[in-house]
């Protein structure tokens, strides 16, 4: 989780990712952020995030993103 928060804070230092929800639906993470985020997650966690995972539900909070990473890792 620390690692993920680090990536997110690099993108948006003004956001408190431990408490903020609706990152997608409120437009905090835009399309450019998602492209960067997906590539950094893939690199740092050594997983492939396929398009079907990129939904508002999976990216609306740091917690949700983390759970998605765990799901993908479990599918390994």
């Amino acid at each position: 989780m620390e690692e993920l928060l680090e990536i997110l804070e690099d993108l948006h230092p003004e956001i408190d990712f431990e408490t903020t929800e609706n990152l997608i639906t409120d437009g905090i993470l835009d399309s450019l952020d998602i492209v960067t985020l997906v590539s950094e997650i893939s690199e740092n966690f050594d997983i492939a995030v396929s398009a079907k995972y990129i939904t508002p539900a999976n990216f609306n909070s740091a917690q949700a993103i983390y759970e998605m990473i765990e799901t993908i890792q479990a599918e390994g």
Partner: protein
Amino acid sequence: MTRNVIDYLNRIVNICPDKTAYSDGSVSLTFRQVCDQSRALASFLAGKGIYKKPVVIYMQKSPAEVAAFFGTVTAGDYYVPVDDTMPFEKIRMILDNVKSPLILCDEKTIGDARAQGLDKEAQVLLYSDTLDTPVDQEALSDIRGKALDTDPIYIVFTSGSTGTPKGVCACHRSVIDYLEVLTDVLKIDENTVFGSQTPLFVDACLKELYPTLMFGATTYLIPRYLFATPVPLVEYMNRYKINTVCWVVTALKMISALGALDEVRPEYLHTIAFGSEVFPLREFRKWRKACPDAEFINLYGPTEATGMTCYYRVDRDFEDGEPIPIGKPFPNREVLLFKEDMTLAGKGEEGEICIRGNALTLGYYNDPVKTREAFVQNPLNPFYPELIYKTGDIGRVNERGELVFVSRKDYQIKRNGYRIELGEVEANVEKLPEITSAVCIWDNDKNRLVLYYVGNVEERPLKKILTEKLSDYMIPNRIVRLDKIPQTPNGKIDRAGLKKLYLSKRK
């Protein structure tokens, strides 16, 4: 002959009054409702004596905002769209420039407008509060009777290198001229279902808003957040049977680069127009494979020449590294390529893209100096007044006779479809008391805006400050603090040196 864009609305409302004109998926307006709303707003404005004035529309992208545009034009005024994604500083600079008597808001933006003290600059009103105004047919007919096709419709603001945005002001004649040729090339008809991606504060939205009125088509204003999630975005397009898009390349690229086209296909799409940036071939090919029967059209044009100037219907494959041409001008406008000495570029030679024709806008609002710099007398014609617009873009004609975009002359870049002057970002950063100097470079391969600065603030806190001061699309991806900005021997900022430094550190 159509001389006023509102004539399109008055015509179509008699043909298909109950058809959906604009929708965002949850809220929809029929042509009848759009017409009624715009006439109510126009009567309200006429009643207030607001005539031939800029009216600021500060609303979220919505069908109501579109009706507010048309209401403003019906009243003989011109709309100045601002947006809830713009920083307040930019909105204030726009208000300073246009000195509008009125700011129309929606339920979300009115709170912000008041909290920011915008009500001291102009009257702040809820758009919805104007809608119960009884229609004053006599006043509206009188306004229509006096209107000329050289009167303005809108002012939209683009990036300016000194940090002050420039307001491009366009009239009916230019917009009508553009719409006629554009809809012909895109083959728009009553079955067209547009999916609109661009914000309504740029002239790009002309492509959907007005053709919808001309043909009785339908436009879906796609919620912004969907552009961060490609599969739900394509599903949205399929749900509403969207068949025509005019998007910035970044939006198309996001869908294909994240692999969404392997999961779901845009089933109804038959016309894909794209522009504002170069489409990387790798991503373009994924789109052609996913939509083999669709027409792909590359569009090019500066806001100053009303919408798009050139088009190219993709009719062949390209070799790696070969740019997709911008083709040829739409009818009734000419592109001239001028070399530094203001003589015409020969075959294959590079020159600055200059445009002439009705499409030229009226210039920069309330800024005669900048207008005179960019809109100049055609050097080929010393005989009578005739303006050309100098785009600052460099182009050339290839072996096939197609126009190709080569580069920018200055430090203007395209990011996420937005036009950005690197100088504007730098000027805004340098305004901060903590900053001594700032330089931006643009990494075109990785689509990264990098800011180098000297000052008394750490990198992360600086980014935090910038998110409040700059539009989202201007915020640098990387921020690097330096002890001093490198200079060339003759004392200029060494941009090339910085770029080398950046590339050497890029992973």
